[in-house]
């Protein structure tokens, strides 16, 4: 498998692609729910991956029904998640190798994520990667979040490259911006 065209820039998703954070969220949800006597089947959790906050709320409200306080639940999940990141925030396989290869090829790169800027900085700093990206697009930098491609489009704009068509995405994704065709 090779790229159909040479790349001129690369844009990374963050959660699940660079960091093993999807599994930490899964564990945080299960732990938080269990502490409250709630059952969260794995298919329920997986069905919310890549959904917006409002869509996730609708899924949980629909599952637990009237009387379920999503805001209180998610606040507790977030607290549990941050506790887990203190000791279990792992880089996914190949991140360092790929960044080194992009350095060698002098390809600029950005992160496009649904996470908050402070979380991106925290995760990158924990692994000494803060200076490896030319741009970071995070929550608040675009109007429509995942699965809409707006974060990737905003990242392309920050890198000053022409994005072309971008797919909606729900699973960890990396996009290579093709080098413009020579005239």
């Amino acid at each position, binding site marked *: 498998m*090779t790229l159909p065209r040479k790349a001129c820039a690369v844009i990374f998703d963050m959660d699940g692609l660079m960091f093993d954070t999807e599994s930490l969220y899964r564990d945080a949800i299960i732990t938080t729910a269990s502490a409250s006597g709630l059952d969260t089947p794995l298919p329920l959790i997986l069905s919310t991956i890549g959904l917006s906050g409002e869509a996730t709320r609708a899924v949980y409200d629909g599952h637990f029904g009237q009387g379920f306080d999503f805001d209180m639940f998610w606040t507790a999940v977030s607290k549990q998640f941050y506790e887990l990141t203190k000791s279990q925030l792992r880089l*996914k*396989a190949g991140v360092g190798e790929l960044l080194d290869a992009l350095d060698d090829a002098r390809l600029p790169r950005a992160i496009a994520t649904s996470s908050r800027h402070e979380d991106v900085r925290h995760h990158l700093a924990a692994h000494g990667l803060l200076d490896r990206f030319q741009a970071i697009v995070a929550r608040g930098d675009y109007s429509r979040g995942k699965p809409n491609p707006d974060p990737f489009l905003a990242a392309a704009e920050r890198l000053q490259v022409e994005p072309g068509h971008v797919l909606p995405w729900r*699973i960890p994704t990396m*996009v290579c911006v093709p080098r413009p065709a020579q005239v």
Partner: protein
Amino acid sequence: MMTIMVPDLLVATAEMEKLCICVAQDLHEVCKIMET
């Protein structure tokens, strides 16, 4: 853009596989694709 998906907890559907240029196991595989 050329989209490479690297599934984690969620498996790529057949529809997703059709839309992207490839589904990779991890970023080691992506690195090989970028270098060739």
